């Protein structure tokens, strides 16, 4: 864990972009690489910029977070995606976990959950 984890925050609400940005700023070994307001913007951003972790809101205008996450996993399998939502996990389709997309309730998110989810994702991957 020598390298800094580069993070992209995707959310259509600026208030949450700021909150997530603050979390990334205080967490150990993470740096905010950029923010995006929609799934489409996020995909464009990833084509241009290398990122290690994407924090993705579920409900956004356009293609939405679920679809965007699946596409990111298709195009950039090395990128870890963490879905965030104010809805409950059981309201999301079950196939996300199989595709290696983790979920965290928005109100439970913070520096510790971020670090823990990253650890789980990176130690789970060979």
């Amino acid at each position, binding site marked *: 864990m020598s390298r800094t984890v580069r993070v992209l925050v995707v959310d259509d609400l600026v208030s949450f972009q700021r*909150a997530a940005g*603050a979390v990334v700023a205080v967490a150990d070994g993470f740096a905010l690489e950029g923010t995006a307001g929609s799934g489409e913007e996020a995909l464009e951003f990833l084509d241009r910029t290398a990122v290690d972790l994407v924090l993705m809101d579920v409900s956004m205008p356009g293609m939405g977070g679920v679809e965007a996450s699946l596409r990111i996993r298709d195009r950039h399998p090395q990128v870890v995606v963490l879905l965030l939502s104010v809805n409950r996990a059981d309201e999301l389709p079950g196939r996300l976990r199989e595709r290696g997309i983790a979920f965290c309730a928005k*109100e439970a998110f*913070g*520096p510790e959950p971020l670090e823990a989810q990253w650890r789980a994702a990176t130690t789970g991957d060979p």
Partner: protein
Amino acid sequence: MARRHHRRPMTAPARPATPPEQVDFLGLRAYLRMNLVAAMVAVAVLVAIRVFMVASDLLVVVCLLVVALCYALWRLDRRLSDRRVIHTIALLAALNWSAALAAVFIVPFALIIVGLVVLTPAMLALPHLDRARLEPLFGATLVTAAVVAAAARLQPGSGLEQLVPAWLVTGLVVLFVTLISGLIMFAAWRSHAGISARASAIRESRERLVAAGERERREIERELRDGAERRLGSAVAWIERTRRLVTDAPGEATGSIDDLIEELAQVGAELRTLAHGIYPAILADRGLDAAVRHAARGAGMPVAVQAHDLGRYPPEVELAVYRCCVDAIREPPDPTGDGLTVRLRGRPDGGLVFEIAGGGPSAPAGAARPITPADRIGPVGGHVLVRHGPGPRVHGEIDPITPTRPGTRGPASRAAAAIWRTVAGAWSGLASEAPAEVSLSGLLVLRGFVTVAGAFVVTTCLVVRNPWLGLVLAVSAATVLALTWSIRLARRRRLLPGVLVADAMCSVSVVLATALVPVTLYYHPILSVIPSLLAIPLLSRPQFLGVVVANLVVTVVLTLVGRLSPGVGIQQRFPAPLLDLDIVLSVPICTALVLSLAWRAHVSLSERATALQWSRERLIAAGDRERRRIERDLHDGAQQSLAACAVRLRVVQRLLPVRPGQAAAMLGELADELRQAVRELGELAHGLYPAALIEHGLEEALRRVARRSPLATSVAVHNVPRPRPEVALGVYFCCLEGLQNAVKHAGENATVSMRLVGGPDGELTFDVSDTGVGCDPALLGRGHGLSNIEDRVGALGGSFTVHAEPGAGVRIRGRIGP
């Protein structure tokens, strides 16, 4: 012919309620069976005549034809189902009319009976067919009446009736004329009763939906205010306290933040449950199956959900079915039952079937007028069968929305429809004075008809120098006078006495006229049905039975008089071709009168039912839209702010030991953000149900609205004690809507005045007028706001008008009964 080529798909469920052979289809089946009995009686009579009186081979042929008719009727009865109603009516008309034509060719005097027979399919079809299908049927009925009358008069027939004893002919005529007159009256009654029952069912369902919608708004408002809004308000104070702790007692601050995060998580969960109850986002995202399973997990009893071949359906359909299921899931569980089973199944044709079985006692009685499954499913074009009692079961089906077939009607059908439209247009022209009141317009047309017919007979008497001129003149004049009197009564809103006066006088004069000129028996039986048709919309069932019995007695007397009276020599002096012409014209004219009356009654009633249905659909759609909006507002607003706050509190926790200054600053920002969230929640709750209305009453709530209005707005209230809550809310929203309308369209310098006036018996009138630029009344249309007012006022059983003139402002007035 393949015996079962019209079988329903195997997957379609058997109807759980009445077996199909017992469904009456608004009298259609009863009519088919009576028709069959009548045909069988005819066979028996024909056989008896053949055996005992007349040894004619023609009788054998006729008998075989009637047997074939019997078989066809039996087949129609056996195969009648809701998908074959239109088909059955068309076949019935074809059978009836060909039998009628055959009858007058063989025995022309049968025109007395046949004139009525020709009418029956059209009368039976009224509640079953839409306007586009009724028009050609009515036109064809008229043409058939004319053809049958011409066939009866312009050819000699077989001479069979001369061979049969006169007493038997008279007996048969009396029997069949009475029977068929009765059938026509009952068909008209069933049609009226069927459509008005539909209208009142829709009206009641609309009232239940509005009441339930308002109850829900109030509950959501209360939950928002007493729950989330208050708790968030105290969370703001809590953050401020914590911020002071950061500098004064940093050790305690960490614990305080932990508690705050916990509190925000609870409020968030509360809001999430509330938002989900308002509109389940999962339904839109993942469909009916996932949403119902999700709801089932939170139920107080075991709920089994089975879904087969389920696809995605229009949002309103999914929402309606989902709500039906949730209503059942929320019922108190049945202490003895094994829980609830919800079955959802997609039909191969794109329709949707659902069944909810078991569970709690879905008793029809309830204090707060519960919403029924039919209330939910009806507006999206489905139907529901509910079985109450032990093991209640709801079975619903929603057909796929298929584009209505474009008019692929043939030229004959188009021509028939055009004939009918001409006749209906002529009626409207004659009775344009009172288009709304069917009975009154019927009286007006009837008077016109009697005047013309009376003048014709009087002229005839003068020409042929008949000594009975005085009596004819007196009867005609008395009838016209009686009708004039009944019209006056009807105009003074005493429709029933008016119609009964007309009924009595017309009966007397029709019998007298038949006695004087017996040949009019060919069309007078048709005429004598009219008064009872006029009375139908005004009568209760027992009253209607009384009128029918009286009219049938008149029919018997009329037929006997027509058969037995020698007349007074008017028809004998009349040239035969003119007499034929009179009958050939009068039969279709009388038929047109009866049909027009039935048409007007049907059109006005079914238009009312359709308007109610649209209004209910608009209310449902508006309710759904609003719930979706609230859910979105909560989801994107308060829930997100809350989540962001919780996240940043964890950041504060991390910063606290290393950079306390930055942590304190962030806490300050957080307090501001939460304050904003509290304000937004308050506005949302206010939009749902204005708290001022409950706390301070309608007048004060409107004054507050007026104070916030960008236009100068005055409020005047006279004699309005506390109205019922739903009336207060309805009037509040109507006034608000009217004010918003003025703000949008009246111009900057306009002033608005809102007036509420209470009547002596508890009625309430509201009036919103502005001094703005106004508009052309023709352009007014029914915009969104105005139809909102109309629906709301309608749901409270009131009425509403809009007056607009260019340069003179717009005035909206509504009246809500006690």
